[in-house]
């Protein structure tokens, strides 16, 4: 018999954030036996931190009137700088309004349209008609032609996660929280499940399932300054990459959010600018209209972030012990608005900076925020390379976002792709043959992990300290793979990370590694994190153009002739660099053109001079 506790189900979902739970619900409601593994209790997932909202072209509020799926589609494709899969984008925009309405049925208290005239912060007037009263309303977000972001005050992610989790509980879906998948089990063709480590006891377990869904979110914590939760270390991407068969798509596409609060790097939602907040420099000058006369603070995130760094480089930043920063000003929105619609922001400012945004400026700087890249899947969520393996949400490269994601599109993606892919998972699983696996193969995967653990505890491979390695990795990415990139810096990053990767194979534990030892958990993740870091920087070094969030100073133009393609990074066993391959990007409706904002745009005269 097996040495390890073995748990069998039809569907195994790794990650209990919004996308994972939404997919699990779809599979469970078709009668399948579903188990969800999660690092933390589901309601603690990073999805809950999404404050701003969820894009869906309902067109209910006055400023959203005339909106439709075509407009949403165009915004998304332009936002992605033509890097996204247009078939996926089309499917997404068509489904988003339905998903948002479904969430309303499940309990999300979306803010609603209140009829009447209102004056916007910029002085414009809008009137919501009586016949729309009580329907789901929306706020303004960056890179959108209409007000399209549905919200619940500033707790959209929180209320969505609670509503979705309430359905998980209602359906009685099993959740094993504090369980970390540390390896996929596969036979080179089919994914059979995972080897997981219990973070309560340290026990290794085997989970077998007909289909496995990776929904582990992003890798923000590879960077030293990230708005992400500390659990966002890209675990799911790492174990997929480790198979050697599964590619990661567009890992070099890393989003920096314009407004991370200095110095704790906690996110100040885009809703702050959507609701009328300004960016100011050290002279309290509102500089964004100088660069982006049309969209101002509400150009897409990559553009605003670059403009901010550009402005700081010109010497207009505010000096601080944590480096220069800029100001976010929401004072003119008034105490009432700030303390209801933007209450979480007010709390965050008070708790972590001791300032009240009603009468003080918020120090901000662009901060790592989102990974557009991830485990490459097709439009149905099937992961390239292994049957029975799916990926969804930020962990996946479904490729809705291309090289830049629009604010509000990720929360929408979780519930839309969770729904769509969940259905495909159910369909696949219902038609899948009974689990037929070799005992030795499965035990082998667990034994490899057990051996890693034993070696780490014994210090057999070396005595490298995991925490110092980690700091060096974080710093390398911060210094050389940031908002503006160039060849020499990226080469430095790759060289550093390669060396760190070799050292990561020689980590030894300081402590005894017993039970749910936290040091051991970090050690087990470290080589995988470095592989991801190498995929990011090597992909960035190789891509000799600028597209969306990938901005090369030495190649400032988008190059559709050579680079209208998606990076696929594979990790061959024994290698210390990813093997990069490319595939074409599917263009179905909207051929590459002008975004309407940003450096390359004709409408942005100042921007042209800059670059």
């Amino acid at each position, binding site marked *: 018999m097996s040495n390890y506790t073995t748990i069998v189900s039809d569907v195994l979902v790794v990650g209990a954030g919004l996308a994972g739970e939404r997919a699990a619900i779809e599979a469970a409601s078709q009668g399948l036996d579903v188990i969800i593994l999660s690092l933390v209790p589901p309601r603690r997932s990073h999805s*809950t931190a999404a404050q701003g909202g969820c894009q869906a072209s309902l067109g209910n509020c006055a400023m959203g009137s005339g909106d439709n799926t075509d407009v949403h589609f165009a915004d998304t494709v332009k936002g992605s700088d033509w890097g996204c899969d247009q078939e996926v984008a089309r499917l997404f925009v068509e489904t988003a309004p339905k998903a*948002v309405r479904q969430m309303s049925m499940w309990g999300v208290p979306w803010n609603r349209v209140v009829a009447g005239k209102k004056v916007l912060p910029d002085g414009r007037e809008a009137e919501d008609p009586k016949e729309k009263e009580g329907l789901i309303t929306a706020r303004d977000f960056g890179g959108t032609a209409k007000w399209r972001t549905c919200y619940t*005050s500033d707790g959209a992610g929180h209320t969505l996660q609670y509503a979705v989790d309430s359905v998980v509980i209602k359906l009685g879906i099993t959740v094993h929280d504090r369980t970390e998948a540390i390896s996929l089990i596969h036979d080179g063709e089919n994914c059979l499940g995972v080897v997981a480590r219990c973070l309560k006891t340290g026990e290794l377990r085997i989970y077998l399932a007909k289909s496995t869904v990776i929904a582990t979110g992003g890798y923000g914590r590879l960077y030293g300054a990230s708005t992400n939760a500390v659990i966002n270390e890209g675990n799911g991407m790492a174990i997929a990459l480790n198979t050697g068969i599964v590619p990661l798509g567009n890992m070099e596409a890393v989003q920096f959010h314009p407004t991370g609060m200095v110095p704790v790097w906690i996110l100040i939602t885009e809703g702050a600018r959507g609701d009328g907040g300004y960016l100011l420099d050290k002279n309290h000058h509102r500089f964004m209209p100088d660069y982006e006369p049309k969209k101002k603070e509400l150009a897409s995130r990559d553009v605003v972030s670059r403009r901010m760094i550009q402005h700081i480089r010109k010497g207009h930043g505010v000096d601080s012990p944590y480096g220069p920063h800029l100001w976010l000003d929401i004072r003119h929105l008034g105490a009432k608005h700030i303390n209801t619609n933007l209450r979480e922001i007010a709390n965050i400012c008070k708790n972590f900076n001791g300032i009240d945004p009603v009468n003080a400026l918020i120090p901000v700087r662009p901060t790592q925020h989102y990974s557009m890249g991830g485990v490459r899947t097709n439009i149905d969520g099937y992961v390239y390379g292994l049957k029975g393996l799916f990926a969804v949400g930020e962990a996946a490269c479904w490729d809705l976002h291309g090289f830049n994601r629009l604010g509000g599109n990720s929360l929408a993606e979780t519930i839309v792709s969770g729904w769509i892919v969940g259905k495909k998972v159910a369909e696949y699983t219902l038609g899948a043959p009974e689990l037929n696996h070799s005992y030795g193969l499965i035990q082998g995967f667990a034994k490899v992990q057990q051996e890693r653990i034993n070696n780490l505890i014994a210090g057999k491979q070396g005595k490298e300290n995991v925490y110092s390695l980690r700091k060096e990795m974080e710093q390398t990415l911060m210094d050389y793979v940031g908002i503006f990139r160039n060849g020499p810096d990226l080469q430095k990053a790759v060289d550093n990370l390669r060396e760190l990767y070799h050292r990561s194979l020689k980590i030894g534990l300081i*402590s005894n590694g017993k039970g749910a030892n936290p040091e051991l958990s970090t050690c087990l993740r470290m080589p995988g994190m470095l592989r991801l870091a190498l995929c990011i920087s090597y992909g960035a070094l190789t891509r000799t153009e600028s597209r969306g969030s990938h901005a090369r100073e030495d190649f400032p133009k988008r190059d559709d002739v050579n680079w209208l393609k998606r990076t696929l990074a594979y990790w061959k066993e024994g290698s210390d660099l990813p093997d990069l391959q490319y595939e074409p990007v599917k263009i179905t409706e909207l051929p590459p053109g002008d975004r309407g904002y940003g450096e390359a745009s004709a409408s942005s005269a100042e921007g042209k001079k800059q670059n």
Partner: protein
Amino acid sequence: MSTRKFSIFRYNPNTPEVKPFMQEYTIEEPPGMTIFVALNKIREELDPTLMFDFVCRAAICGSCAMVINGKPRLACKTLTGDLKGTVTLMPLPVFKLIGDLSVDTGTWFRHLSVKTKSWIHSSKEFDPNAIEDRMDNETALEIYEAERCIECGCCIAGCVTANIREDFLGAAGINRVARFMVDPRDERSKKEYFEVIGSDEGAFGCMGLMACDDNCPMQLPLQMQLSFVRRKMVSFGLSAK
């Protein structure tokens, strides 16, 4: 730079032969240091075995509640500069201890959701082609006010009743029911609500000490929610046959 002393509860249920004890650590204290920063520093520089939980580190997820100098609080948003003398850290009571400062709030709160049937009870089928049912914006805001609970467990840890009675749902549970009672989408009857919470496990177990109201890091109006549910339960209980 000034230094700060921490006295931290240590016990690992996986090694019961080592009895619980308080361990002291001293670290440098830069300005603006939170307990989040401090604990990570202790783990990375002094003691890699120390167990504690953080997720969002922004007071959104509710993972890091612990008893800090005698008060249940979120560690991520507690500045050491606001505390006097040695910082004493204990795990939350009531919840099952995982190790050191880490407790199992997940299991407890899932049980709470199951027990209070915390989901929208509706007979309606979802029609993907229909527009959404209308709702008054004021109602939406009222629901959100109760829904803001992050299940951190501070109200439970500070509650005398919850400490004695294993089955008491506490302020978090009663507030959760209040959230569904104000939601017009939930079709549950008075009788059904009364069965869920019209007992000493729920509304009538509260002894009015209001530690929950004092300790809530989200500043939820728990006194008002608890009394709202209590009054509703009386009227439901007395009106139901």
